[in-house]
């Protein structure tokens, strides 16, 4: 069995099983937790709970005016690599084939060269994220090994994917195998680290928004 056969075969299958199992375990586990009831009557003029939750999910996508100056760089950089990752993951034809393979969903691909350029920008942005985390005293204090692992398993697929497309490093099939293995690592770590925010951000923002709006707090 070649490295590519291993990557495309048992490694990827195991990673997908762990990903699906882990994500649903954590999501269902959180969704079925008992809710902390708020027995106070809602503040007069308070929106419906779902509306307050939805508003907060959207509103928190951009910092409040008083925080913009201090958070503009990390906010913009976060947008760059989040949007970049989304375009690379969901725009490149081989990725669409991969997703179609286990979900049955498919859509038109972006030109490969465009995705390549986006990938380069995304990787630079991810490096900037790491540098900031390493040099910012507060962020460094708050960071633990799991955070760096989350960064690594996010950046590695981008780096190996670029190297595969640009014929950089070993032969194509070796780079492709490393790329697939790095994706397998991402899928395995995804449910157990902070990468789960991809699913949880809606729930956590929504819960905060529902509680705040009930009390008449503007978000």
């Amino acid at each position, binding site marked *: 069995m070649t490295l590519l056969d291993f990557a495309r075969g048992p490694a990827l299958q195991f990673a997908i099983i762990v990903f699906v199992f882990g994500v649903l375990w954590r999501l269902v586990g*959180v969704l079925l937790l008992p809710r902390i009831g708020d027995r106070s009557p809602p503040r007069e003029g308070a929106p419906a709970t779902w509306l307050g939750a939805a508003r907060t999910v959207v509103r928190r996508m951009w910092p409040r005016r008083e925080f913009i100056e201090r958070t503009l760089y990390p906010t913009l950089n976060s947008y760059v690599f989040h949007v970049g990752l989304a375009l690379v993951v969901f725009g490149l034809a081989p990725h669409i084939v991969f997703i179609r393979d286990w979900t049955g969903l498919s859509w038109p691909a972006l030109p490969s060269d465009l995705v390549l350029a986006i990938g380069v920008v995304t990787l630079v942005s991810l490096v900037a994220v790491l540098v900031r985390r390493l040099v910012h005293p507060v962020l460094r204090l708050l960071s633990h090994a799991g955070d760096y692992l989350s960064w690594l398993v996010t950046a590695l697929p981008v780096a190996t994917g670029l190297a595969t497309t640009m014929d950089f490093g070993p032969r194509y099939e070796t780079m492709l195998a490393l790329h697939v293995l790095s994706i397998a690592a991402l899928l395995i770590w995804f449910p157990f680290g902070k990468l789960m925010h991809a699913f949880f951000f809606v729930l956590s923002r929504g819960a905060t928004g529902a509680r705040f709006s009930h009390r008449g707090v503007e978000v």
Partner: protein
Amino acid sequence: MTEPKLLGEVLRERGVSRRAFLMYASCMSSLMALPPSAAAAMAEGLAKARRQSVIWLSFQECTGCIESLTRSFSPSLEDLIFDFISLDYQHALQAASGEAAEDARRHAMRDNKGKYIVVVDGSVPMGDGGVYSTIAGQTNQQMLAETVADAAAVVAVGTCAAFGGLPQAQPNPTGAVPIEQLVAGKPVINIPGCPPLPQAMAGTITQILAFGKLPELDALKRPRAFFGESIHDRCYRRPFYKRGQFAKSFDDEGARKGWCLYELGCKGPVTYNSCATTKWNGGVSFPIQSGHGCIGCSEPGFWDMGGLYRPLASSARPLQRVVPIAAAAGVAVGAGTALLARKRLAGASQQGDKT
């Protein structure tokens, strides 16, 4: 005993003109990616070479490799190679049969001890004492061991000989192994393909004859001249890949427009061969040009790459069954943990009520 004639003399006697000979040398050196100056050196080397004794062993194979060489569309090239070599043993082509054929093989081995080249097509079955393929009472393994003992070099032609090929595909019922696994202490060249390009076979033998040394080989012992670049690298449909234009089925609009066949399982990106440049049938076409993806036939284990029509980007193992099971297990465990949390909470509030 008279000294055997030089190749140049033999060819002149057969009416091969100097011009045709030089054209052949130029063509071969170009195919082998040698510098232009090598053409003259190759012609000179060939002219001074003695006819090379070649013993061709056929084991677990389909005769497609020798068909590829003899039925190729460029007889001017591949016919010439038969003028350069003395093919002393070849099941499909030799007139002799039975004991006479085996005598011819042993005779050639004695007369050219240490100088003859062994070409092998087909893999060797090792299961159950090698009983799955025998020739003249010998297992393939025995015949190979006997023949390569005094050979100068071994050329494994076709994917079965080079990497095990179809006989070795899972579950490999005959215990098939590639030639390289059974040959020790002799140089081995692999010329894989199902079948291999005739130019790759002829070019490799010509280079050995002309320069007396093996061509430059890659990690899988394939001549770099023919296996140095991937099909994808040289594919004329690559611009469609770059633009993200893919045929989704063999008869859709994309297929009619000649778009990339990646999504239909083309293995071009991981297959090293020169089909896209040398092409088949006298340069007429190659599989991708004819509308079918590359099946990766010159790569080890190509038959077990997860399916000929399964795209490279997809998992080599089907996920349709395992994903729902993993999902159901995830939901069950998640519900279980939430239930435990609820019980703990209920227990804590009961305790709070008591106190």
